[in-house]
């Protein structure tokens, strides 16, 4: 019996290999885990978009919120923008990080397409972007009430992403904060 079973060894190996590779097909190689998960949002002092006044870390943290990295040169940002407006309208605080952009163009964009952001950080040189580990736009960070980064989503936030990934985590953080955790 044993030598018989041995004949099936290649088949078993093949099945294992196939399962492993099949799993790989559905993984997104572009999605990198952020090195900043569970790390505090880096310190920064940057101008507000289109203004002389500055905003710093304390101006963003304090509640569970989204930090959305966007720019007018980023085509996918235009795709996700209407959905961000919708999420913001439902009461979710969203802060914007206008990444390596021109203030005038960004201002026009917000007047035309609506402004879902509580405030917009103008990161003209991309310095905060580098400290956050941003490598492209759009990226969306989920911050807890203490200003700790809990999740990063790379790519467009649409209804599917919001409902299946971000919203559950957002609600979880909200209820954790409510119970004093």
């Amino acid at each position: 019996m044993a030598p018989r079973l041995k004949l099936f060894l290649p088949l078993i190996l093949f099945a294992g290999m196939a399962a492993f590779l099949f799993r790989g097909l559905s993984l997104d190689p572009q999605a990198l885990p952020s090195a900043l998960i569970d790390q505090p949002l880096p310190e920064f002092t940057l101008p507000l978009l289109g203004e002389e006044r500055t905003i710093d870390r304390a101006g963003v943290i304090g509640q569970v919120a989204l930090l959305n990295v966007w720019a007018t040169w980023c085509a996918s940002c235009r795709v996700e923008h209407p959905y961000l407006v919708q999420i913001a309208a439902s009461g979710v605080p969203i802060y914007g990080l206008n990444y390596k952009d021109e203030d005038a163009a960004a201002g026009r964009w917000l007047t035309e397409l609506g402004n879902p952001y509580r405030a917009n950080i103008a990161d003209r040189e991309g310095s905060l972007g580098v400290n956050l580990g941003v490598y492209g736009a759009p990226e969306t960070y989920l911050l807890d009430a203490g200003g700790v980064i809990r999740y990063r989503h790379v790519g467009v936030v649409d209804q599917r992403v919001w409902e299946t990934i971000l919203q559950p985590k957002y609600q979880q953080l909200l209820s954790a904060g409510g119970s004093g955790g």
Partner: protein
Amino acid sequence: MKVLSSLALLALVLLSGPALAVIETYQFSSPELEQRYQLLSSELRCPKCQNQNIADSNSPIAQDLRKLLYQQLEAGANDEEILDFMVARYGEFVRYRPRFGGATAALWLAPGLLLLAGIVVAAVALRGRRERASGGTTLSAEEEQRLRDLLDKTEKDS
């Protein structure tokens, strides 16, 4: 002659690759810094384009990282500090030679372990074959007697 000139052209195209790759140039205060810049920028991976190092990539993030690398080198940071800075922001992913430990242990150990497994499998297979081969040629005393009888018989028959 035609072959020669086309070969020369091909060589020219191949050699001009690195020259095209990087757009901006930096003025270094010492050749030693420039050498470290070349080394580090070829060892740091572009987070956006993934299969290129930041020396070869022209994506905006690679440009930013090259600029940072230049600034840090001129500010007197050592290699370890620069790599730590990059890894703290972009993860071990950003290095083509990640540090050993944790999730990267599998990466470092897998080739050796696979080679070892291959050697073991080959050794077992070879030994099995040798045993079968040697087991097939040695006859027991009884079998030898039978063989001799059979040979004697055929000789008598012929």
